[in-house]
């Protein structure tokens, strides 16, 4: 009866009536509910698309479909990395799991940075705000809600990555909680600094100021990014045995279900909000 003995069966949990692990079933139930959340938001967008008030902006003149297509591709590729992370942990390969988790975080952050860029571009260059048109209201709330889902997914991935460093030795485990918290804050600072640096660099290029001009304006963000990355790299060198392995595969798998779902929702949003305008 003990699940500690012998190899772990990742597809069948004999302690439940159906054989499906509780955590996985829970995630499926949540995703069913989440379908309805997005269904409502997408319906709202489509209904107002059919009933645009006079003077509504033309979405085609606002969108930059090349950028959105690129970020869509990146998000879909992140799903591949997520699947690889699940697969690696089911085989007990912690190192490969970590790499794929970081890759998923990286791709997710590219998507989010593109969205931040897109939003600020739309507000400042195209004059589309939350309140100056109904299209702005539905567009920002729908894509923003999806962006929040991606951001929560990134947070979850980072937390899982940090979790993979929990020492197996119980004595070290007591200090680990505090350490994990600093690890998380370090991640947050690094990610914010990185996004600020990249967006600042893009802005500098746009203004024709080049790398020097960028450094001049965004030295803090750039320095924070470099320092954060170095520190994160050093932490990742930790060699002590960890309390993380095949038994945690179910947690990563549930997270993976969420991540894939958020990707699938983006395919629907990309089609219904963007591509539909180019028909």
């Amino acid at each position, binding site marked *: *009866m*003990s*699940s*500690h003995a012998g190899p772990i069966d990742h597809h069948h949990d*004999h*302690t*439940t*009536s*159906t054989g*499906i692990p*509780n955590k996985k*079933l*829970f995630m499926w*139930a*949540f995703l*069913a*509910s*989440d379908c*309805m*959340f997005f*269904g*409502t*938001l997408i319906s*709202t967008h489509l*209904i*107002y698309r059919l*009933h*645009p*008030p*006079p003077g*509504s902006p033309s979405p085609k003149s606002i969108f930059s479909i090349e950028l959105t297509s690129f970020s869509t591709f990146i998000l879909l590729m992140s799903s591949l990395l997520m699947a690889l992370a699940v697969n690696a942990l089911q085989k007990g390969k912690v190192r490969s799991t970590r790499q794929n988790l970081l890759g998923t975080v990286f791709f997710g952050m590219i998507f989010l940075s593109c969205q931040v860029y897109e939003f600020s571009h739309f507000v400042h260059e195209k004059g589309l705000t*939350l*309140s100056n*048109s*109904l299209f*702005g*209201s*539905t567009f*920002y*709330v729908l894509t923003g*809600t999806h962006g929040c889902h991606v951001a929560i997914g990134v947070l979850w991935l980072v*937390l899982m990555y940090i979790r993979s460093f929990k020492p197996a030795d*119980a*004595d070290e*485990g*007591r200090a680990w*909680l505090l350490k*994990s*918290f600093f690890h998380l804050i370090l991640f947050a600072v690094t990610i914010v600094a990185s996004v600020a640096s990249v967006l600042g660099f893009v802005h500098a290029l746009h203004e024709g100021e080049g790398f020097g001009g960028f450094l001049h304006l965004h030295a803090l963000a750039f320095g924070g990014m470099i320092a954060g990355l170095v520190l994160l790299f050093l932490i990742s060198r930790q060699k002590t045995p960890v309390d993380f392995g095949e*038994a945690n595969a179910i947690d990563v798998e549930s997270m993976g279900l969420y991540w894939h779902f958020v990707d699938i929702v983006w395919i629907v949003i990309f089609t219904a909000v963007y591509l539909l305008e180019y028909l």
Partner: protein
Amino acid sequence: MDAAAQSHFTSKEAGHAVTKRSWIFTRPTAKTGLISWLTTVDHKRVGILYGISALLFFLVGGIEALLIRVQLAVPNNTFLAHQTYNEMFTMHATTMIFLAVMPLSAAFFNYIMPLQIGARDVAFPRLNGFAFWVFLAGAIILNVGWFVKSGAPDSGWFGYAPLTSKAFSNQFAGDVSTDLWIMGLQILGVSSVIGSMNFIITIINMRAPGMTMMRVPVFTWMTLVTAFLIILSFPAITIALVELMMDRSFGTNFFEVSAGGLPILWQHLFWVFGHPEVYILILPAMGIVSEILPTFSRKPLFGYPIVVFSGAAIGFLGFGVWSHHMFTTGMGTVATAAFSLATMAIAVPTGVKIFNWIGTMWNGHLQMRTPMMFALGFVWMFMMGGFSGIMHAAAPADAQQQDSYFVVAHFHYVLIGGSVFGLLAGIHYWFPLMFGRRIGEAWGKLSFWVIFTGFNVTFFPMHFLGLNGMPRRTAVYDGNMGWNDANLIATIGAFTLAIGIGIYFCVMVYTYFKGEKVARDPWDARTLEWSIPGPPPEYNFAVTPTVHARDAFWYEKTNPDEIAKEKSLHAKEDEAHGGVHMPSQSWFPFMAAVGFLTGSLFFANHHFVGAIAGGAVMFLGIYLWAHEGPGGYHVHPTADAEEPTGYGHSGKH
């Protein structure tokens, strides 16, 4: 089936690291006192917390109803100002639906459902505690308006746009009553969805060996259907509320007519939630009645599969009829006809259930105990409400009845005569299980007859008021409209009903302290929850039951030798695995809910720094919750049990 493999608890042990844990993860172990309640993960205690809060809010909602009836007792009354009256009917409906009937149903889901399927707890015990504390947070936010300057929410429980727009909140700058309403409902939605997901996983995954889906008691089936309705319908209102919140706080235009917003969209989103909500309120009561009628008719439930499928069909059809709340909005003839037909179709599975209940009683040896009285009252009164419901389903008739007291009469017949009667029956029925004492028959029946009379005297005249044209939600009416007598009668009825509820509550409290003590299984019932002593031990079942038949406990009672042999075998197996695994208590669900409450209160008052601080506390709570691990300890019920593992005859111990 390998029964030993079905331990029904996460097999992961915290064992090896227990001695060296950080102080912050010291699990509370109090079994009595305040801390034991704040940190509880026991589904029975969570159920009692839900029940007590629901009954408290039931009284609050009742007082609001009485104030409404006092105002309407005579024409041109000045007892309540119009503004106060609006607050009363808004909060009466919101309170009764979200803070009384739903949590009282949730109390039974929590307490009874795991016992009926032979489980030792729900699938995620800490999450279950969290769902309750979040519910309480939402209830506080909804009611906090009574104590602050902005007043209670006053735009109706349906919150139709544009009544909820900023332009209508202009009594003074910073009127946040509508913001509180929005925030409160969103939080209650979070609580309901979390709780329901837990119930779904529990029913699907935690059934005792042999408890197939077609052996699951009907109440548990209705829990499952209701939980699915909740997780699929609450997102619609949550998003509608998010859009409204964006309108009010961040200047979007979803429902802003001047910028092209469509108020009708709110109605659609609201009723896409609102109609399934009706079934969320009634299906648990139907489940309770389906348990009580067979017990007191001394027969199995007539046509169990068809009762189950009817319940599921009602839930399914319930998603396709929302626009019957909007027949007068001019949807067009095709939509109106389609929704009219779909609405009438729901009468079919409902009627099937009624006939099955009658079939259950047919030729039975009816025992007219108090729970049975309430259950019979349910069947009759719910049918009355159903009849006027079919009248509304015909769109031309509905056009006449819309927004009149006829509608008020209709939904009070299904909500009080239906849901509340069912829930009151459930309290009487399961009280001996929960507290080991039985409510006296004489007082129980007295409360039933006073409630029954008061209810009909209050709401039957409203049919006539409605057909005579009295509109809903008006604080005053003129004396020459011909509505005076019926209104006075209704007010007298309302106070009779209040006296009945008062008797019911007094008797319940008295019984809790001084009532007649009863042994296990006082009703000679059929389902597994009666196989354990009342009040149940923390671990529920000393030995995980193995189910051989639909009426599982009845089979146990009629085949004592087979069951006794099986139980002693399983008890040995359990001991070989180290005893019964119990989940540890935890502070963090409570902590996360406190963060949620403070953050939301700040947000509703547009203090975004405070909102972020509350959110941070919540995040910290969830972070620690995730890191403390499931925990757990073992108990050895069979080793030190006072009673033998075999089951003797009911009532003798």
